[in-house]
């Protein structure tokens, strides 16, 4: 393996040189260096080609990916290829991870290690989502990123917890380690991380592809929400030691979901899998059903796995069912008491929330101060889950009066307390009242 020296200049294939400043880290395939290129600080990944099975093909694929460009701005995509060394080693340049993002590994650990510059000791700093909305938004962003990747005809291949950075305040995500991404159906020697790999890959009877990505995606989502391993329960823990053959069994030939409704042999174990036990009770059935399908029928029949677009719809719905109560309790509407069809009541403080029904779906959206709905929820043709269309706000001139502000760029028709329909332009608002009706232009909403 050829390592780069600090201060060394690396020539790029299409001109320019990058100067090596320091080591950022090393992984299974090589080392990542901090470099200066065109006056900017960037990251340079330099491969250990001895560990690669097909370095030539890998390099060619990387070059194709660079010329295709990223499917969206959610990918930390390879940008420039280096020249090949005499011994065949090579690397590529990508942007540095922007500030404000934490690795998914740190989120799962709930802390990250930082070295105190004075003492040199490692200090644990907590890493946690700032809000439930930020967490569900992160899920939607992850799902959407893989939908875009798969629409571009490519598969990620080794999807795992090391592949993401997440902003815990906003839910923004960045997919990193994009160098194994390949056209669906090709594989350049990457198997993946057990626990994340689809059972057919673990068993050796399939190579990573778009369908195995879907399984890995379900594992990533399960880990993010339920903070545990979907296949690790009583049956696995009884093995005590996870040898190679027990991994083959529990993640391949005989993988059993911890909440398989027809097989109770692998339920989570108290004292070990407390997160999963606790969170499984919190999530609404439509989310649990999607995971059950992914990890039961989806184990044996790859085509029955949940497609990204369905995940996206489920989690956009979940985001719209969050209630942030004034008492500090934040949860999904299914965890609130429902005295009647339209009302949700906080079981802790008793506060009641009315809700908005929509003509294009059955579930109602609870209304609380600061709640938002998005463009994709009021416009059937839109896939835009980030642009806020409306928000529940307090009237600035009349304290205590709550209303909905039109944050979209279109006018809405709204029924006011006088019983007449009014045109509500962008930037304007209207009070929430018992007979409220809104026509967004196609989709209608009502109290």
């Amino acid at each position, binding site marked *: *393996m050829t390592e780069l020296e600090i201060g060394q200049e690396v020539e790029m294939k299409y001109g320019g040189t990058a100067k090596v400043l320091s080591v950022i880290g090393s992984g*299974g395939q090589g080392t990542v260096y901090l470099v200066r290129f065109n006056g900017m600080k960037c990251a340079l990944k330099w491969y250990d080609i*001895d560990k690669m*099975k097909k370095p030539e093909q890998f390099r060619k694929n990387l070059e194709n990916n660079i010329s295709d460009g990223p499917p969206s701005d959610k990918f930390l995509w390879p940008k420039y290829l280096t020249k090949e060394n005499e011994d065949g080693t090579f690397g590529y340049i990508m942007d540095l991870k922007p500030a404000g993002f934490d690795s998914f*590994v*740190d989120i*799962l*650990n*709930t802390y990250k*290690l930082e070295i105190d510059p004075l003492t040199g000791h*490692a200090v644990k700093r907590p890493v*946690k*989502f700032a*809000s439930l909305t930020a*967490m569900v938004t992160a899920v939607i962003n992850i799902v959407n990123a893989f939908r875009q990747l798969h629409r571009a005809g490519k598969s990620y291949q080794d999807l795992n917890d*090391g592949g993401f950075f997440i902003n815990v305040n906003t839910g923004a995500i960045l997919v990193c380690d994009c160098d194994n991404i390949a056209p669906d159906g090709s594989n350049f020697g990457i*198997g*993946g*991380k*057990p626990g994340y*790999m689809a059972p057919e*890959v*673990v*068993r*050796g*009877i399939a190579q990573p592809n778009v369908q195995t990505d879907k399984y890995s995606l379900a594992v990533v989502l399960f880990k993010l929400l339920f*903070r*545990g391993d979907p296949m*690790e*329960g*009583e049956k*696995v*823990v*009884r093995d*005590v*030691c*996870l*040898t*190679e*053959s027990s*991994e083959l069994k529990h993640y*391949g030939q005989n993988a059993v979901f911890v*909440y398989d409704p027809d097989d109770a042999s692998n*339920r*989570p*174990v*108290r*004292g*070990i*899998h407390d*997160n999963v036990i*606790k*969170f499984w*009770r*919190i999530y609404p059935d439509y989310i649990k059903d999607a995971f059950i399908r992914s990890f039961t029928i989806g184990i044996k029949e790859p085509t029955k796995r949940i497609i990204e677009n369905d995940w996206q719809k489920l989690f956009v719905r979940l985001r719209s069912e969050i209630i942030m109560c004034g008492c500090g*309790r*934040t*949860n999904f509407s299914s*965890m609130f*008491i429902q005295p009647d069809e339209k009302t949700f009541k906080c079981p802790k403080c008793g506060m009641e929330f009315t809700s908005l029904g929509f003509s294009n779906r059955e579930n109602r959206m609870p209304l609380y101060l600061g709640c938002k709905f998005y463009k994709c929820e009021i416009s059937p043709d839109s896939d835009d889950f980030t642009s806020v269309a409306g928000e529940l706000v307090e009237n600035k001139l009349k304290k205590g009066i709550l209303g909905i502000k039109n944050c979209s760029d279109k006018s809405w028709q709204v029924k006011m307390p006088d019983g007449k329909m009014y045109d509500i332009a962008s930037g304007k608002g209207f009070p929430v009242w018992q007979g409220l009706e809104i026509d967004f232009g196609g989709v209608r909403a009502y109290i």
Partner: protein
Amino acid sequence: MTNENISDSVMNTDTDSSAASEIDKDINSESTDDNNSSLLDFDDDPLSATAVSKKSLVIFFLIDTSGSMKGKKMGELNTVMEELIPEIRRVGEADTEVKVAVLTFSTDVKWMYQAPIPIEEFEWARLRASGVTSLGAAFKELSLRMSRTSYLNSPSLSFAPVIFLMTDGYPSDDYKAGLKELQSNSWYKFGLKAALGIGQEANDNVLAEFTGSADTVVHAYSGGQLAQMIKIIAVTSSQIGSKSMTLSDETGRELSEQDVFSAKQKLLGQQIQELVSSQTDGDDVPFDTGW
């Protein structure tokens, strides 16, 4: 043997069945019935998660502190171990909690700490050398501690331990008797074993008997090499040990237990050999000259 699985009973053959029944007691898997109480349960914040449950990996360092290690060898070893610990701190990522236990052997055998310590909190206590090389006693002590009722008592799943032996001389006691005892321990059987011989006196055959294969035995003849080899072995074995196996079969045929048996140990041997062969020989003065 190839199809053997480490189950509770197998793991505890040396102690008895009480540990196994203890484990059975611990496993209270969740029943699925009730759900109605959850609305009134206020500990239901979807964000208040604890860290994901991790697999546990213990890295055992077996270090020769006999008199012949005195001076440069011990100085080099202490320094490289101090530097090494922070380097492998993050190796477990979100999946594995890595702990370290250090057993030293000279005339007596002695643990650096009385239990394995999480690597994030581990601080190296500098070692001193004196006495003879009681390797057999060290094997026996290791075998005693590698048990569910002793050092390997994590309630959750474990990976098989990493055992890294470093010595510079021929054992002064009956190492074969000790090794025999160790070989009957299932954690040893499934563990990742590697050994480093330091200087001319260390016998690679003895070390290969311990690791089970020659390719996980390396030799260091100088201070520079010693530092390199310790790092290579410790980093590689902790990386492999703390992760699930990597799959490389490309035949498209369904893998069997035989295919994956001891896959990690083979991978370790392969990677150590690759890394060792790519190291440059420094111009350091060999340990055994210039006395």
